[in-house]
Each structure stands twice: as structure tokens, then as C-alpha cells.
């Protein structure tokens, strides 16, 4: 389940191991997909933002 309603008891460890072992690494193609731009509500491709120069992508949420 992606949007858990409460923080799972067994959180963290498996995800960190998977990040290290199986998520795309340096040198790999960066995954592309559609996002909603908050300021305009327009949908764009993530790749639109890295086309003109290196892009720093910080992931996060309110909590």
C-alpha cells in the first residue's frame, strides 16, 4: 500500500536496502513520468525540467 494511513511498524529498513540495491543508480537513465505543477495545475513531463541543464530533484512531503 503506497498511501498508508498510519506509519507502518516495519518501515525504513527494507526501503533503504532496496534503494541501495535495486533503484536506478548513478549513470542509469533517470525515470521519467508526468507530474502536476503545483503553481499552475498543468501536467508536464519531469524530463521537461532537466532538458536545459542539470536538475536537482528533492523528494519530500509536509510530514
Amino acid at each position, binding site marked *: 500500500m503506497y*498511501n498508508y494511513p498510519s506509519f507502518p511498524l516495519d518501515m525504513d529498513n527494507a526501503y533503504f536496502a532496496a534503494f541501495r540495491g535495486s533503484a536506478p543508480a*548513478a549513470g542509469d537513465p533517470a525515470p521519467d*513520468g508526468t507530474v502536476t505543477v503545483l503553481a499552475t495545475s498543468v501536467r508536464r513531463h519531469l524530463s521537461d525540467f532537466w532538458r536545459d541543464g542539470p536538475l*536537482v*530533484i528533492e523528494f519530500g512531503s509536509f510530514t
Partner: protein
Amino acid sequence: MAARGVASVFLYTREAHPGEQAPHHTSLEDKLALASRFQERWRIARPILVDDLDGPLHRAYGTLPNMTHIVSPGGRILYRAAWTDAASIEWALEYLLREAEERRSSKRVAPFYSELRGFRAHDDYARTFMRGLLAGGGRQAAEEFVAATATTEGPAAGERLRRALEDLGAG
């Protein structure tokens, strides 16, 4: 960095610690509303891009709550970290911009793979983190994180967070 052609975005994911203040998203509208509150609360200047409800991009990059990546104009990952740390991101950008300069001066450049073990300051981390979690997530989110930490890292670690909560008047 913006002056040197580097762009920066915040990619909004699921709530890492859902609670009464910021519940888990049940629709894209929920997610956009929380992203707006986040933007106002922290006065985020850079573009906030909201991932679809089921987190396809968050999952594709590795599902960690606070990771950071740097991507080249050609769409290759140049840097990735399990945690967002300004010092290592700046350091990486200086290095990567030097590579771009080498390429522009027509020098031949060959990439190689490397890794780095990063670090972040840990003193008072429990108190700082729990204060933030109480304010942003709420009491339920804070209590759940204490319980989860006790489960995954052991009772001593859970106890440290519980004491931090008590010190904040919420334990």
C-alpha cells in the same frame, strides 16, 4: 547555482508520517492541497511538482521519503542520496559543473562509477525531529513513529524518541 544553469525542483510524494494534521492522501486534490500548505508554510520558492496519487515517480526513484537526485540534461542520474543534505549536494554540483566545463572545452571525458557514504549531524536529532513531526504531523504521527522505531531499531531507540516527546510536553 541557478546562475550556472542548474535547476531545482521539489517532487511531492505521499505523506511520510500521516497524522491528524496532515492525513494520507486519498485523492490528487488532497495531495495538491497539502503541497500548497507545505509551500506556504516553508515559503518554498522553487517549483513544486506533485507526483500522481499512487507515487509512480517516487517509487521509480526508490521510495525513500527524503532522497535527492541530480539528473543530467541527457536524462542520466549523476548523483543520488538516501537523504537530502545541502552540503553534499553543493559539493556534487561543483564537481559535476567542472565536468561540463571540461566537455565544453572539447576535452574528452569518460565517466566512471563511484559511491560516497554521507553523514548528517545527529546531536539533538531526536528532539528536533519529534518537534517537527508533532507540529507537521500531529500527536498520532509522532506516537506511531516512536512505536515503529522501537520495533525496527530496538527499545532503546524508541525510548530516546519517547523521552524527546515527553520533553516537548506531548509524551
